[in-house]
């Protein structure tokens, strides 16, 4: 049953060090506010799952919150590499990062299996691909009817799934629309669920392609307007492409990264202060630029 609560309380109450945590959102509705709160609260040793670990996971990795990453594509979309992710994999900084690497189709199926209460998923995948050589959890399974050999992958059952949604109602039911990615499955596969939302409203005006999730599959709903910045929330604000580009230079150098995180994330109390801090810095640079 969903409590409508503060993000601080939700993260400290529902995520424990060492938990397996999925923070999903496919380009759209990436839960940045929640990710920052994980960093602020100093969570350690998380196994972090995400199809597309991008900036928020780069930050979590660089701030040493993550011990293991389960993923299928790690990059800065439209820009290039994730330097903190690369540094962790290539140089073990700030600490060695275990990786368990899949394809999108595999992880999407693994969430479906998790949501379906099944221990594994079956897909026609990985033929001729080297990933099964380096990821022992990818196995083979034989169709009992045709004899075809397919891939079997273990289901994903995160301890906690965190997503950002456009709206909640006052009971804590939530609604997302636009590109909805794997969020429904990631929520239904999880033991505990935190949802940050743009807005709490009296009643939904359910629209085409809306995904609705009832309050009784959610543990905490936290009002965080703008909480997926710099990604976007359809109907609320657009993606700040500049931020993604600027991240390339912020994240390239360890010290620049640490200073930036200290200034904007650790030295702010919440996501509203973070966005104010980033925006103030940008204006200052603009003035001096």
């Amino acid at each position, binding site marked *: 049953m969903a409590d409508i609560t503060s993000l601080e309380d939700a993260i400290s109450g529902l995520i424990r060090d060492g938990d397996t945590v999925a923070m999903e959102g496919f380009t759209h509705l990436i839960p940045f506010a929640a990710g920052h709160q994980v960093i602020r609260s100093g969570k350690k040793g998380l196994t972090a799952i995400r199809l597309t670990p991008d900036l928020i996971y780069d930050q979590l990795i660089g701030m040493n919150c993550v011990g293991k990453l389960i993923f299928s594509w790690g990059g800065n979309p439209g820009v290039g590499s*994730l330097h903190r992710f690369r540094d962790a994999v290539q140089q073990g900084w700030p600490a060695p990062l275990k990786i368990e690497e899949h394809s999108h189709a595999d992880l999407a199926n693994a969430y*479906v299996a998790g949501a379906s209460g099944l221990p594994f998923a079956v897909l026609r995948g990985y033929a001729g691909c080297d990933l099964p050589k380096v990821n022992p959890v990818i196995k083979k399974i034989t169709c009992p009817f045709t004899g075809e050999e397919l891939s079997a992958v273990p289901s994903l059952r995160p301890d906690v799934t965190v997503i950002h949604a456009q709206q909640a109602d006052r009971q804590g039911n939530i609604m997302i629309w636009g590109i909805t990615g794997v969020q429904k499955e990631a929520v239904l596969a999880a033991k505990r669920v935190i949802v940050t939302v743009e807005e709490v409203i009296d009643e939904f005006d359910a629209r085409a392609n809306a995904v609705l999730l009832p309050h009784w599959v959610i543990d905490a709903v936290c009002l965080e307007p703008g909480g997926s910045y710099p990604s976007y929330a359809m109907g609320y604000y657009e993606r700040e492409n500049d931020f*993604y580009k600027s991240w390339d230079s912020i994240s390239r150098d360890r010290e620049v990264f640490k200073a930036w995180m200290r200034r904007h994330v650790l030295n702010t109390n919440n996501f509203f202060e973070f966005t104010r801090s980033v925006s103030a810095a940008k204006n200052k640079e603009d003035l001096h630029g």
Partner: protein
Amino acid sequence: MAEGGWSSDEMMTVAAARMLKNGAVCFVGIGLPSAAANLARATHAPDVVLIYESGTIGAKPYVLPLSIGDGELAETADIVVSTPEIFRYWLQGGRVDIGFLGAAQLDRFCNLNTTVIGDYAGPKVRLPGAGGAPEIATSAGEVLVVLRQSQRTFVDELSFVTSAGHGSGGNWRAETGLPGMGPTAVITDIGILRPDAESRELILTEIHPGFTVADAKKSTGWPLQVAEFCVETLPPSAAELTSLRELNKRSAHAHVGY
């Protein structure tokens, strides 16, 4: 031929766009494939159906998307479905005619690497990884690959096979039981390569205006074979170039800062 010439990247995108038949259902990777597919839609193939792995089916973006999940893809799509559904019902379900992929590296059998350069456990360069490519390579009716050709990208041996092309060559795909035909063409900034009908090794079959076969060989990390009748690619038409440049201009304008 257009006045004032064109860049080799423009030639590559135009040549790639021409490969798409009108009405084909095309699963599109971001970057070069997306540019080519949208150019096709703006020129000879207005009814091509573009699918992005974010779940947008029939997306008709006015500007090139920066990411696979740009809002405009959802706003202009015929249908938006979940990521599991796009991979399960549409790709694995056999609904995709053409998978349109990029890569960091390929080998002579058109196997693709987007995972690591060097050793997996201690990589020289860690690349983004597989994304949707392994299963696009498996299940799409056929696969087109577009990337710039060089000794760095066309390599004798891949550090890592992320997505299977023709595996070890010959009848590997049929023997492995893969539903799709695999790569049918690789479009580069220098020319077009196609797999040999028997060996499935990539053969240079077209060379773009301004390049020579020697350029292609020099930019390939294995002894590149050349088709008996290697033809010169038709240069970009004025209409193609205009469309491409308008598309790029619109996109640059929309994505200020990029």
